[in-house]
């Protein structure tokens, strides 16, 4: 499409800086900031109510921030730039009584496309997302999965220069998850910064270049998966043929869990791996002794759920 060529030339970086928002006495956001480079897939992770949706709504201008700003390409975001954002709100919504095609054409035109371009773009995305035979049906008559596809098409139909997607994977069937992942990667490959929130951490881990974790309205970690997991504490996986509980008294060691074959341990900084090994050998035959990297889920649990900030 001609539009693509035109837009890939513009490579925006998006900066969110110092966002604050309160509702009465409740602090929803406190100095939230992160940067998403051009062509970067940025995962936005946090518990329910941590401030993801509020941050995204502020990025879209749907909500006003009390302080802080959103910059695109170094300049504060304005109405015109916002029209170039593809947005998928957490609360999905389309006109129930409009047909798929009319809906997409309408949204494309609201974003400034000409009638012709709007029709072309709508048809393209309808074909791409496999809803061609449903294009003249009212939205309310579609299955939930197909409604989600239309919702994605609605976010993409005006060929956005920046994507902000709130929980784009929730409610998708496995096929649609793959389609969605492909589309996000493709848009990123075109140089579009992509911000999306998700509770499916495995997906975030697989897709994202970088991620940010938010807790109680404040960012607690921002970086690549490698950076974040490497910075976390050392973790050991030790298999011992012996009585459980052997590691309980080793200094600087915390038992994280037991996966049946082996005990999972977390070492405090400067704790001695060799002391752990000696304790294990004392307990019984050691079948396995390895260091492993924390998964994103564990990292998330550490940072968010248990509140043990690094």
């Amino acid at each position, binding site marked *: 499409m001609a539009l693509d060529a035109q837009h890939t030339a513009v490579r925006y970086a998006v900066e969110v800086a110092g966002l604050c928002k309160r509702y009465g006495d409740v602090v929803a956001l406190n100095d939230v900031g992160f940067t998403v480079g051009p062509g970067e897939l940025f995962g936005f992770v946090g518990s329910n109510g941590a401030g993801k949706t509020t941050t995204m*709504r502020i990025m*879209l*201008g*749907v*909500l006003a921030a009390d302080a802080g700003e959103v910059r695109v390409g170094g300049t504060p975001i304005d109405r015109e730039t*916002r*029209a170039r*954002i593809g*947005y998928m*709100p957490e*609360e*999905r*919504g*389309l*006109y*129930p*009584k*409009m047909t798929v095609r009319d809906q997409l054409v*309408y*949204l494309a*035109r*609201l*974003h400034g496309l000409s009638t012709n371009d709007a029709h072309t773009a709508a048809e393209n995305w309808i074909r791409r997302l496999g809803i061609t035979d449903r294009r003249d049906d009212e939205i309310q008559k579609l299955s939930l999965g197909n409604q989600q596809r239309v919702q994605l098409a*609605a976010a993409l139909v005006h060929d956005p220069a920046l994507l902000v997607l709130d929980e784009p994977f929730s409610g998708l069937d496995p096929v649609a998850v793959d389609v969605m992942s492909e589309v996000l990667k493709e848009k990123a490959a075109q140089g579009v910064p992509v911000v999306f929130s998700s509770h499916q951490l495995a997906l975030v881990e697989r897709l994202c270049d970088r991620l940010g974790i938010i807790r109680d309205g404040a960012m607690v970690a921002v970086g690549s998966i490698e950076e974040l997991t490497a910075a976390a504490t050392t973790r050991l996986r030790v298999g011992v043929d012996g009585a459980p509980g052997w590691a309980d008294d080793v200094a600087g060691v915390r038992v994280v869990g037991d996966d049946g074959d082996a005990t999972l341990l977390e070492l405090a900084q400067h704790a001695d791996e060799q002391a752990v090994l000696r304790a294990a050998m004392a307990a019984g035959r050691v079948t396995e002794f390895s260091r492993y990297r924390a998964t994103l889920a564990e990292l998330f649990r550490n940072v968010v759920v248990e509140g043990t900030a690094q």
Partner: protein
Amino acid sequence: MTSAVRLVAQRELVLRLRTKWFLIGTLVIVAIMAGYVLLQMSFFGGEDRSRIGFAGQATGLSERVADAAAELDIDVETTTVVDLTAAKADLSDGSLDAVVSGTAAEMRVLVKEELNPRLRAVLTELSRQEVLTAKLAQAGVPDPTAVMAEANAARVDVTAIDPGSAADDQRLAIGVIMVFLLFMSINTYGTFVAQGVVEEKSSRVVEILLATIRPWQLLLGKIIGIGLVGLIQLVAIAAAGIALALAADVLTLSSVAVSTLVWGAIWYLLGFFLYAALFAGSGALVSRQEDAQSVLTPVTLVLVVGFVAGLNVMIVDADGVAARAMSLVPLLSPVLMPGRIAASDVAVWELALAIGLTLATIALVTYLGGRIYHNAVLHTGSRMKLTAALRG
């Protein structure tokens, strides 16, 4: 910026004009009006026409009776009766109203139940003249017919203080119909605005829209779009009604009708904009269609009270103090003023004042309604308190 308003308005217009309910609704209302006109026609057509049969000697009187009746504005149809038995049957089944026989001086009238009193007066007068002419001739007056003609030519001279009052009934009818149509249009399409706002909230599509356009653009576009649909329907119905009534001769005041239509359209726009902002603001307070009725009732109530009270006051005396005062109250003038314009003569200053007050109220209400809408449109869940929505 304005293109966003145009796009929103266009969507509302196209989507709503395309629904079958718009067409069906419009046709049903036109059909009801056509039925009303036909009813009026049958009243006017059947009421005064009397069919009189003349038998025997009386046959020669038919022309004089017809002339005398025409002079008194009585519509008669005359026939000659040959067979009296058949004529009696015709009287029984109502296809004849009276059978006249005998001479002019001694008329005998056969009727089913009773003789129409006006017809009786015509026939009696004719009979008296006949007797009088004969007596004058007997008394030796040289030219009794000339005397009778002179006597008959005598007329009272009538001066009307308020000419055209015969047309008042028609004007009042036009006014009442206009008031009714305006009330219906403003109420229906105002409710559509509220339902549209709630639909966007309940389907959550409003968040996508507001990520692209501003709240005021969405609201203004919606009001313009729905308002135009209502205007199209109102003008179509009123024009069809006027055309039907003129064609059927029920309505003879075409200039009053046309000016009522034009003023009706103007006042529809004023009234719709006034109430649309109220309806939109109220609709924005709730997130579900089920809750909509409770917030819309107060707005509808104002409209209904204005309509019912105004209509009564107008029918009693369209030019009275009550009607004049009420038609100046901003929330009521859109319904009452056009009714008064049709039914009576409204002073220019009254019209100007009413339009001015309404415009000022529109500005105020649009500001408040827009503010409520702006603050409440993204609020989901329970009904939002009005004070909270105004504060923001």
